[in-house]
C-alpha cells in the first residue's frame, strides 16, 4: 500500500465524520430544547475534531493535498467516500437519533479494531476517539429507547426513521479495494467481520426500544465509490461555498 493509497484509506474513514458533523451542525439552535442542542453539538464537535486529525494525516501522506482544509473542501462530489447513511437529512428528530444510532454502533466497532492498527498514527487517533464514540453510542441508544418506548406518536416516528434508514446499513460493511489493501497491510479493519456483531447489537437495542427490526433485504450503496444520494450535492454546496467562491485565501 503506497502512501497515496494510505491517504485514501484515512480519508474514506474521516469523510463519514465530516458529513455527519455537517448534518448535526445544521441543527444547532433548532433542537427540541437547549439541553439536546448542547448534547448534539458536543457530538458534532467530537466528529469534527476526529475529522481534522484524520485529514491532517491524509494531507501529510499525499502531496496533492496542501492542508486538512484542502481535503475537506476542495474535492468533487464523487471524491468523497462517505457512506450514504450519514448524508441523509434531518427529516425530524427521529431521523437524527436513528442515523446517529445506526452509525455509532458501527463507528465504535470500527475503532475497537482500528486502535490496534499497525499504523501508529491511525491507532493513536482511534484510541482517542473511542472514548468519545462510546459516549455517542450511549447517548443515541438512550434516546432511541426514549422515543421508541415513549408515546404512541414517538414510536411511530422512530420506527418510520429506522425503516427509512435501514437500507443504508449494509453499506457500512462493504469492502472496497482500498479497504482490502489496508487490511492486507495490517493497518485497516476487516469490515465483513464487524457485520454480525453490528446487527446483533442493533437488534438488542431496537428490541429494548420496543421497535421492530426491519426485514428488508434491499440495500442501497454507492457512497464508498463516490456515487451519492441527491442530498449530497446540496450538502457540499453549503460546505464548500466559501472555498469555492473565494479560492486560494486564508480564513
Amino acid at each position, binding site marked *: 500500500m503506497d502512501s497515496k493509497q494510505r491517504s485514501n484509506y484515512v480519508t474514506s474513514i474521516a469523510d463519514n465524520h465530516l458529513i455527519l458533523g455537517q448534518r448535526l451542525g445544521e441543527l444547532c439552535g433548532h433542537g427540541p*430544547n437547549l*439541553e439536546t442542542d*448542547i*448534547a448534539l453539538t*458536543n457530538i458534532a464537535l467530537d466528529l469534527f475534531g476526529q475529522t481534522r486529525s484524520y485529514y491532517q494525516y491524509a494531507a501529510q501522506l499525499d502531496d496533492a493535498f496542501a492542508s486538512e482544509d484542502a481535503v475537506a473542501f476542495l474535492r468533487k462530489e464523487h471524491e468523497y467516500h462517505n457512506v450514504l447513511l450519514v448524508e441523509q437529512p434531518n427529516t425530524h428528530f427521529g431521523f437524527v437519533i436513528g442515523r446517529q444510532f445506526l452509525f455509532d454502533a458501527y463507528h465504535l466497532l470500527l475503532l475497537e479494531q482500528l486502535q490496534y492498527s499497525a499504523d501508529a498514527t491511525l491507532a493513536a487517533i482511534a484510541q482517542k476517539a473511542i472514548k468519545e464514540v462510546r459516549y455517542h453510542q*450511549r*447517548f443515541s441508544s*438512550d434516546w432511541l429507547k*426514549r422515543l421508541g418506548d415513549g408515546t404512541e406518536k414517538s414510536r411511530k416516528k422512530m420506527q418510520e426513521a429506522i425503516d427509512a434508514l435501514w437500507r443504508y446499513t449494509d453499506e457500512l460493511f462493504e469492502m472496497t479495494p482500498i479497504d482490502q489493501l489496508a487490511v492486507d497491510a495490517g493497518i485497516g479493519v476487516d469490515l465483513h467481520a464487524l457485520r454480525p456483531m453490528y446487527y446483533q447489537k442493533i437488534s438488542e437495542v431496537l428490541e429494548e426500544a420496543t421497535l421492530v427490526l426491519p426485514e428488508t433485504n434491499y440495500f442501497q450503496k454507492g457512497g464508498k465509490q463516490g456515487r451519492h444520494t441527491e442530498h449530497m450535492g446540496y450538502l457540499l454546496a453549503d460546505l464548500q461555498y466559501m472555498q469555492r467562491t473565494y479560492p486560494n485565501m486564508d480564513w
Partner: protein
Amino acid sequence: MKKEWPLWEVFVRSKNGLEHRHFGSLHAADAEMALENARDVYTRRNEGVSIWVVESKYITASNPSENGEMFEPAKNKVYRHPTFYKLPDEVKHM
C-alpha cells in the same frame, strides 16, 4: 401527566480530593438524561471528574425568614472556637 421535564440540581467534583459543589441546574426527563445533560452542559471545559444530580423537588431548604432562630444562636457559642481559650505564649503547637 406532566409534560414538561422537571428541574434537576447538578453537583460537580472538579477533582479528586475536593467535595462536590453545586454548579447549577437543568431540565431532564429522567436521571440518566440529567447526568448526560449535566456532563454536556457543565463539564464541557473539563471542569469535573464526578457528577451528582438530584431532582430539585427532593431538596428541603431552610426558610430565610427563620434565619434568626436557625443560625443566630450559634453566634454566641464562642467556646466552640480555639481562640476562646487563653494560654501563655510559651505553649507552642496547640
